[in-house]
């Protein structure tokens, strides 16, 4: 549970089991795992803003807990240099029903992608490195949640 920023990998099963065990009425655990896509790159380096990152993730989590009836939520984001295929991020939530769990997990990712201070730099096979551009679709995905209206659940 909670929010963590770390260099080390994480144990998805342990995190999901912890969420599922929070309360006898947890009926649905939804998780998102983000991986380093490997085509054409040899490494992905994640920089972040220590101090603000944790606050931003806590704020995003608190907003999700306020919007949906969740029994718990976990956000873990790695920093440092990662190999292709490595896990970057885990977002997972526990709820009574699947509608709330799916929505909240997607919300957490959409907000994390646009509000948490992380920056990705890719190292290509020829050794050159470039900062990943922000995607316009991430902004529009986050904007979907702005009205405060939940989608059909």
């Amino acid at each position, binding site marked *: 549970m909670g929010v963590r920023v770390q260099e080390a990998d994480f144990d998805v099963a342990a995190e999901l089991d912890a969420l599922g065990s929070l309360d006898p009425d947890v009926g649905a655990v939804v998780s998102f795992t*983000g991986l380093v896509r490997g085509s054409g790159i040899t490494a992905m380096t*994640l*920089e*972040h*803003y220590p*101090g*603000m990152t944790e*606050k931003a993730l806590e704020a995003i989590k608190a907003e999700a807990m306020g919007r949906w009836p969740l029994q718990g939520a976990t956000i873990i*984001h790695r920093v440092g240099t990662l190999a292709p295929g490595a896990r*970057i*991020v885990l977002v997972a939530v526990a709820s009574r029903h699947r509608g709330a769990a799916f929505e909240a997990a997607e919300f957490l*990712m959409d907000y*994390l*992608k*646009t*509000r*948490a*201070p*992380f*920056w*990705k*730099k890719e190292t290509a096979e020829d050794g050159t490195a470039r*900062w*990943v*551009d*922000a*995607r316009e679709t*991430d902004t529009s995905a986050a904007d979907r949640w702005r009205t405060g209206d939940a989608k059909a659940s």
Partner: protein
Amino acid sequence: MKVLYFAWLRERIGVGSEDVTPPETVETVGDLIDWLRGREARYAAAFEDISAIKVAVDQEQADFDAPLAGVREVALFPPVTGG
């Protein structure tokens, strides 16, 4: 006041953070960027396209017109790309 730079902004400016003491006429984040621009070519280059720059004031998302009075930490960075 502490100013932090991240990602390519940090690389172009050459430092991750610095303590600055702008004159009193520098009242907002926008003023701060204009003032930094005038200091050296590397700042002018880094802040060439202001539309690509995001701001946090004391570790909270903010805008260019955010006031600097009482602020301890301003962070300038490109749009975030985590997740």
